[in-house]
């Protein structure tokens, strides 16, 4: 066997590289990046993770907050107009009776799903990289589901009646909901999902609220955080139940999150409209939801970790793992697209073929179709390369494009399928109105505002869990670079 001289050291061996590039000061190819950078202990973690809460609001935060508030104003004006004048203010009309309202609903709900995936499913799979980002992602879930909930309620036209149209509410009319409708299932799924996410988030938050209470320097902060910490004293007898409760909530949230988007997809799939009536919808919707949700986590996290100085706990490792999940779910979504088209062709059904091979790629909304395909299929392919997974710019731009692409996916499913259905005399174009755009724009701003408030008042990283992880990583001892590499 020929021996060669290694470029990095003085040894001679069969391979060109005998010492790893790691020894030469670079990360070796197969060793994952650290989960927590630098040498940290409970004290430094406390300080660095809670620092953002204790410092006075920065100018950047205030500027964004004001923009968010202004946008929230736009949202509430649009809601007021919708309620005062009716949903005729929206662009929906027959045949496109469902449009922006449902597109935005599905888009926001989908975004929320990444939070549950990170906090619950990755917990069950014992993925340690979830720990620094779960709080952040769960908050995103809550705020996204709030935005989503607005649309069906507004779409009822008279939201003050929605309570007895949607929930089994005992009114003197003795009229009860029809439980055979997927729309009814949706009400139960989404409200259960919101409550579960909220309680799961809050349970995880209690130890951190206690740590804020105990590190506060003003009496006002101590009382305020003290109320929300409920008197938590970190008792071992409480932790004993807490661990199980947290795990069980994760275990329940996991099938729940799958059921929620499955049921959302049934809103479409249980009808007979070509483009909706497909069995691939549930898995394809769930994958799409996770795909867009991770994209949104990434979009928010990349700037936040920089400005909140959290790079030591949200490392390149976390971003890389999220990019991998996006790549995987993106491929599942792509498979969903392929299968839809295949099933349409294989069915030989004229109307199915018309939607998938005429209306979508060649119809008046073809631009939306190609935007969807470019953003959801082409863009994530760059995450095959390590360079793109570790570069914050490619990650950020890629994730924004995925969010755009996923919005257009729902646009294509809803509008393109509806605007040309069975009878050509029934065909018509759909044009959104300024109220539609204001609602979409407004919810984005409202979401951002809620998120900014969250970042300011609550530690964006689960302090208690990171301390535990840090302790676990140090217990391994020795090979610090390899720690956290295995679950």
């Amino acid at each position: 066997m020929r021996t060669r001289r290694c470029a990095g050291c003085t040894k001679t061996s069969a391979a060109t590289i005998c010492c790893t590039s790691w020894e030469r000061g670079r990360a070796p190819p197969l060793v994952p990046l650290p989960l927590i950078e630098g040498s940290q202990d409970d004290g430094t973690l406390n300080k660095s993770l809670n620092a953002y809460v204790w410092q006075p609001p920065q100018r950047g935060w205030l500027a964004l907050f004001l923009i968010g508030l202004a946008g929230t104003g736009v949202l509430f004006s649009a809601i007021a107009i919708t309620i005062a004048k009716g949903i005729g203010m929206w662009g929906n009309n027959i045949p496109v009776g469902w449009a922006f309202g449902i597109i935005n609903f599905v888009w926001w709900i989908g975004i929320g799903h990444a939070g549950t995936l990170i906090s619950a499913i990755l917990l069950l799979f014992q993925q340690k990289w979830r720990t620094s980002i779960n709080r952040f992602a769960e908050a995103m879930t809550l705020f996204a589901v709030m935005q989503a909930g607005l649309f069906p309620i507004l779409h009822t036209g008279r939201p003050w009646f929605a309570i007895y149209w949607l929930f089994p509410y005992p009114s003197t009319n003795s009229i009860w909901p029809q439980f055979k409708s997927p729309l009814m299932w949706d009400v139960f799924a989404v409200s259960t999902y919101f409550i579960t996410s909220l309680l799961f988030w809050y349970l995880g938050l209690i130890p951190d609220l206690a740590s804020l209470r105990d590190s506060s320097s003003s009496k006002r902060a101590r009382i305020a955080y003290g109320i929300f910490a409920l008197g938590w004293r970190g008792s071992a007898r409480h932790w004993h139940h807490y661990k199980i409760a947290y795990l069980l909530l994760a275990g329940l949230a996991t099938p729940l999150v799958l059921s929620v988007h499955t049921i959302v997809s049934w809103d479409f799939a249980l009808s007979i409209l070509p483009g909706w009536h497909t069995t691939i919808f549930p898995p394809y919707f769930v994958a799409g939801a996770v795909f867009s949700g991770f994209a949104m986590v990434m979009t928010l996290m990349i700037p936040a970790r920089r400005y909140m100085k959290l790079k030591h706990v949200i490392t390149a490792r976390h971003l890389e793992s999220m990019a991998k999940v996006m790549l995987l779910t993106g491929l599942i979504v792509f498979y969903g697209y392929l299968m839809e088209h295949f099933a349409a062709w294989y069915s030989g059904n004229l109307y199915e073929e018309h939607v998938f091979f005429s209306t979508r790629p060649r119809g008046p909304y073809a631009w939306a179709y190609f935007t969807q395909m470019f953003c959801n299929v082409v863009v994530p392919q760059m995450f095959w390369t390590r360079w793109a997974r570790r570069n914050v710019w490619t990650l950020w731009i890629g994730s924004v494009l995925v969010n755009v692409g996923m919005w257009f996916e729902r646009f294509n499913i809803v509008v393109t399928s509806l605007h040309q259905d069975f009878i050509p005399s029934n065909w018509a174009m759909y044009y959104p109105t300024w109220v539609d755009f204001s609602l979409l724009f407004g919810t984005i701003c409202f979401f951002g505002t809620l998120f900014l408030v969250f970042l300011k008042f609550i530690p964006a990283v689960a302090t208690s869990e990171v301390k535990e992880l840090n302790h676990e990583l140090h217990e391994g001892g020795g090979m610090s670079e390899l720690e956290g590499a295995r679950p």
Partner: protein
Amino acid sequence: MRRFILGEFTEPDACVEAVRRLREEGVGGLDAHSPYPLHGMDDALALPRSKVPIVALTGGVLGALGGYTLQWYLNSKAYPINVGSRPPHGFWTNIPITFESGVLIAVLSIFFGSIFGFFALPRTYHPLFESERFRTASLDAYWISAETSDEDAVPELEKKFREVGAHKVHSVVESV
């Protein structure tokens, strides 16, 4: 008048070991306080299996039964709607809401069962918080505490706490 002896540790493992020794020596009313759950502490305190799963299961089963009954009663008894001559009671179409209600009630019972039942929270006062230094229990220190109502037992317990390695020992009294 409740009294608590408090001992502070800087290392989690030392804290777990100390609890184990104190329990074996027969010290009653023991508890530990830490910023995150400590590995091996359940064992050291010899805590019985948590009953949270039973609460969760009960909640889940009752929720699912309740959800199903609600749909069955409302759609086939209280207000039957004829849609395309399908039977008013549809077993398969009741499944999604049955599942969702099961999850909902299970989640609510886990959360509120833990907070109100197992943790006995919220509470505005606990004697341990009389000690200002105890605040590090949620930050970066590990504490053990032992409750006693007997004032004379305090010096003896404090001595035991020092023996097992607590580097800061003091006692607090409930303020009435």
